[in-house]
């Protein structure tokens, strides 16, 4: 009796939690298809915001810039983090705890500080102007920390003796990486890339300080907050969410069907 009650309660709480998490996202998709955002009931569906978005060139530039920052940061961060994690886990270098700590510490620095300080450093000491490149570098400082964390957790389960076996059978360290390590751990590296890509793609503070007037999606969204939200923004948010969810869905299908294997053992 009480048992049933507690199970019912758990289900209710779970459903409430999901509503709390997902309703805002679903609501924005709904609003993006309504004529008015002020009180969009009863529903009055329209595709005009999507058409407007299609013609709004500053959103296109912003999207392209965000993509460039995301991909650039994702590549830098996942490559550096992969090298660091292999150094720590495979080669067990001396002082690996300190090295890991230094890689992780940017997690605890406010993004706005990273933004301001990297702008000042790049400009004053290196004489670099604020541009996409310096925004990528600045985003990579903390995105690498996240990528490092993801990879460390994943590769802790990897059996490095497989690499040793390959070396005994004649594979040079480089060949070993290509033949054994990479084919087995690439899902983890890819995961680290996705995390750092998303962080940089979505970042406002760091990009803002390094880019000034050059638009990215988050700076445009923030700007339109001040000048009154246009409904193209809702359409954009809906599209980005759709892209993210279909990507996750695809990943899930690939993992379920065994195309991507997340286990390193036989």
């Amino acid at each position, binding site marked *: 009796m009480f048992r049933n009650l507690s199970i019912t309660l758990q289900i209710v709480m779970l459903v409430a939690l999901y509503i709390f998490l997902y309703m805002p996202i679903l609501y924005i998709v709904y609003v993006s298809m309504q004529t008015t955002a002020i009180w969009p009931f009863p529903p009055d569906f329209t595709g005009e915001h999507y058409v407007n978005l299609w013609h709004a060139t500053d959103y296109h530039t912003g999207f392209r810039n965000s993509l460039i920052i995301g991909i650039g940061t994702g590549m830098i961060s996942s490559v550096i983090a992969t090298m660091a994690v292999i150094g720590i886990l495979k080669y067990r270098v001396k002082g690996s705890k300190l090295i890991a700590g230094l890689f992780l510490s940017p997690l605890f620095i406010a993004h706005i500080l990273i933004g301001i300080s990297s702008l000042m450093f790049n400009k004053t000491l290196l004489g670099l102007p604020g541009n996409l490149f310096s925004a990528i570098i600045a985003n990579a400082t903390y995105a690498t920390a996240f990528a490092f964390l993801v990879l460390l957790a994943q590769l802790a389960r990897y*059996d490095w*003796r*497989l690499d*040793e*076996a*390959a*070396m*005994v*059978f*004649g*594979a*040079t360290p480089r*060949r070993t990486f290509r*033949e*054994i390590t990479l*084919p*087995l751990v690439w899902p983890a590296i890819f995961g680290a890339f996705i995390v750092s890509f998303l962080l940089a793609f979505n970042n406002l503070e760091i990009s803002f300080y390094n880019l000034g007037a050059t638009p990215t999606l988050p700076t445009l969204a923030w700007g339109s907050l001040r000048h009154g939200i246009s409904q193209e923004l809702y359409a954009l948010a809906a599209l980005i969410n759709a892209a993210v969810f279909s990507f996750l869905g695809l990943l899930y299908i690939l993992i379920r069907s065994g195309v991507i*294997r997340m*286990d*390193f*053992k*036989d």
Partner: protein
Amino acid sequence: MSDTVLTLEHVSKNFGAITAADDINIEVGQTEFFALLGPSGSGKTTMLRMIAGLETPDTGRIVIGGTDVTRLPPYKRGIGMVFQDFLLFPHKTVAENITFPLKMQRSSDTEKAEHLQWVVNLVHLEGLEDRYPHQLSGGQKQRVALARGLVSRPSLLLLDEPLANLDRELRKEMEVEIRRFQLELGIPFVYVTHNQEEALTMSDRMAIMRDGKMEQVGEKFSLYHNPTSQFVASFLGSPNVFSGRVSAVDGEIATLDWHGHAIQARAHGGLKPGDAATCYVKSEKIAIETDAGEMSGEIRDVIFKGQYADFLVLLDNGEEVTVSSSHRGQLVKGAKTHIIWKPENADGFPAGE
């Protein structure tokens, strides 16, 4: 040895305060099956890893086929290895796993196919070439690991407890097969195990290790029958242990006073009268008779094993001795009996080592 393939000279290795190898000297000949036997933690794996190049010795020299390889990386040593947990590559098929060493040598496709065919027939893996490791049984994985070690016909094969993860039946079968491969190929095998039955069954010569030290090296028969180290005497076979005080030493034979009985054993380690001594006698080297013998007692229990039986004998002085012998009708529980052994079948060492 004129046809020496592998030589270790004064090889030592420390991990911090742990000495994993302490001044090791070994020579392994061209057609030899050499077993490294020792309890877990005695440094066997470290030794193999140094031979393979996965670990660098602190001091000493390793020579393979006349070349000093001490500082050579593993991928330049051209040896085969079978690892303890198989370590098959999970993303490669059986055929890809087996031909991996050939791929690293950039062999041609025809050569790869020929060698694969040959080794697959040798270890009986026909029809499994396209499976992945997770689709194989333990015994099949073992065979793939062996095939991968042998496929490039290396000058030397290292095996690290290759049968430890298999059940008893399979192990017996593989023991015979591995020995057959070695004879067929005519290359030296260095076989690490903590299982003395395995080592004794397969090897020509063996080395017994303890705490990174080589206790005794030699023909397996000589190690078994003529141990010169107390550890080897206590480790091989299932010896009875007798502790007593030496009453006399006559040439090679010492006489011990053991709970009122005078027992005799070969004297090792400079035993002299008055010394406390420990004496080891393998259970099958004790004769058990109903009518006559030196020490008398009563059979407390009979553990029948088929080909032979273990008799637990309670001697009149209150001590228990285990005797392995063929099973006979009159040797039943409760029967009066006598036991005796030849002095050269017992080995006495200074006590307290």
